[in-house]
């Protein structure tokens, strides 16, 4: 261990100052706005506003869609991670890169691409009608939003799962088989538990942005579908009610605190 020193403290201080000013103080400001009315008096109304039918519905819908999206991402990413991790060929790096590459496309361009595909007069319907097949109408439905979420956040699920799978020693799997476990037992008792940290980090990396998005729902949902992210965004950009927007943000932070606790717990377990 490095020795404690004054120099270290001095070197840490710029970052401490930075994080206090730009991380801690802004959060306190949300807390302040969220718990006061326009005159600055304390009120719990802005947080309680989550219970109004519109807001709770937007939150519930956001949760449903983001849980579905996270689940789909997981179901796609896990088998893919297993295939990628089991590939011993030298091209493994390239293949893995291939699945991560779309991450470098701009987030809005990725979403725009799906708008283009799914529109009523879009590419997919154009191709379908060319072959005389029935048209699909997916755009501006919750399904379209789920597609947008899955497409945008899938790489964030693939990466941690792949990493945790690639880290498992092949011999551990062989050992389980050797001790009499069949393929299914090996998967559920060994592979899956060993990748729990990766799965959890994948889930937070997909679930939180999906839960709080407003761009995907605006673009893929035609402003017909209101998620909690849209509600908060509109409190700031349309209704000009910062107190309400902050109050609802505080509700979102509850979810974030939960995921922080979960990740802290798993980290602790890993340390033991």
């Amino acid at each position: 261990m490095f020795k404690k020193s004054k120099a270290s403290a001095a070197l840490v201080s710029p970052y401490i100052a930075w994080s206090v000013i730009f991380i801690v103080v802004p959060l306190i400001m949300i807390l302040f706005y969220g718990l006061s009315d326009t005159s600055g008096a304390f009120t719990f109304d802005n947080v309680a506003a989550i219970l109004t039918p519109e807001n709770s519905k937007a939150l519930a819908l956001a949760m449903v869609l983001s849980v579905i999206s996270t689940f789909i991402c997981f179901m796609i990413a896990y088998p893919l991670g297993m295939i990628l991790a089991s590939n011993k060929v030298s091209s493994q790096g390239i293949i893995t890169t291939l699945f991560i590459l779309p991450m470098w496309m701009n987030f809005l361009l990725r979403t725009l691409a799906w708008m283009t595909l799914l529109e009523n007069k879009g590419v997919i319907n154009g191709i379908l009608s060319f072959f005389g097949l029935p048209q699909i109408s997916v755009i501006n439905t919750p399904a379209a939003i789920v597609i947008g979420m899955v497409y945008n956040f899938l790489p964030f699920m693939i990466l941690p799962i792949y990493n945790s799978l690639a880290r498992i020693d092949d011999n551990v799997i062989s050992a389980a088989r050797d001790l009499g476990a069949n393929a299914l037992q090996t998967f559920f008792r060994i592979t899956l538990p060993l990748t729990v940290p990766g799965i959890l980090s994948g889930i937070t990396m997909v679930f939180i942005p999906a839960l709080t998005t407003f761009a995907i729902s605006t673009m893929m949902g035609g402003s017909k579908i209101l998620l909690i992210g849209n509600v908060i965004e509109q409190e700031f950009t349309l209704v000009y009610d910062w107190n309400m927007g902050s109050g609802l943000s505080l509700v979102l932070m509850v979810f974030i605190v939960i995921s922080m606790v979960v990740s802290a717990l798993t980290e602790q377990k890993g340390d033991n």
Partner: protein
Amino acid sequence: MAKDLILLENISKAYGDQVILDDLNLSIHENSFVTILGPSGCGKTTTLRIIGGFESPDSGRVIFDGKDITSLAPNKRQLNTVFQKYALFTHMTIAENIAFGLKIKNKTDQYIKDKIKYALKLVNLEGFEKRMPDSLSGGQQQRVAIARAIVNEPKVLLLDEPLGALDLKLRQDMQYELIRLKNELGITFIYVTHDQEEALTMSDHIVVMNQGYIQQEGSPETIYNEPENAFVADFIGDSNIIPAVMVRDELVNILGTNFACVDKGFGENKPVDVVIRPEDVELVKAGSGTLPGVVKNVIFKGVHYEMEVEAGGYEWLVHSTRMAEAGREIDICVDPFNIQVMKKPQSEDEEAIAIDV
């Protein structure tokens, strides 16, 4: 004569262009301690994995106790493996690790509990049930891995370089421990290593492999004293491997000097290699031995002195409890029984085997 428990028949295995095993035949007796010895990449681990069922051979058969198990899944085989770097389940306690195989077989809780206790006692780890693998030292993890394998009462225990990651002292302790275990359990051990000392210490039977072929098999004494080719000679212990000419039966010309030997049947005036172990080279007063030489270098090794002697244009390695100081002129002589004559490699293929060490 013990019966054959495992038979490998004409096993071949290749990854792409790379041939790992080529037409391998091997039989393993019941209740023996067999060591497969060879440098890395020689095919020893693949052989073990084929026996364990983790790899399937491209051709050939694996017979276990009279039955063909070539395509049987590893979980259906009556043998267990102790893996390189232990391969413990890091998300389970020691007890859960050991109980894993038993739970799969739906044994009763009481049975499992007893077994864990018994196995931990056997490997001297009583009281470690609740610990996690990461909190154990390398040697302790190794014992857990062994305990985890033997609670399943396998007929054969496969050990894949199990001591490779341990330090020297621990390794030596574990060697005795393994011999004790084998005797207590009365089952067959198949042990893979690249460490010749380990092989010589523990085994009843050694199989030396290189480049996918079995070079020689036999008891440790045979392998050490009568290597069949330069590879085996060089791989097992330090040796002097010297090109020579077989003058006739029982007489070999080494570096221009005739030595008496006991080997026959190599023909007359045929080029051969001879192997002479360093401890078999005797240094005698100049003029009283067979081949004159000069001591170049002396190192004290504790039990013996290690000396380099130049004689007949070759640097001989000599181990002796008596020192001859550097610069001294001496003569070399060798007991005829200690000269091991080997055929020269004939085909290019065999040459490759001989060179690649």
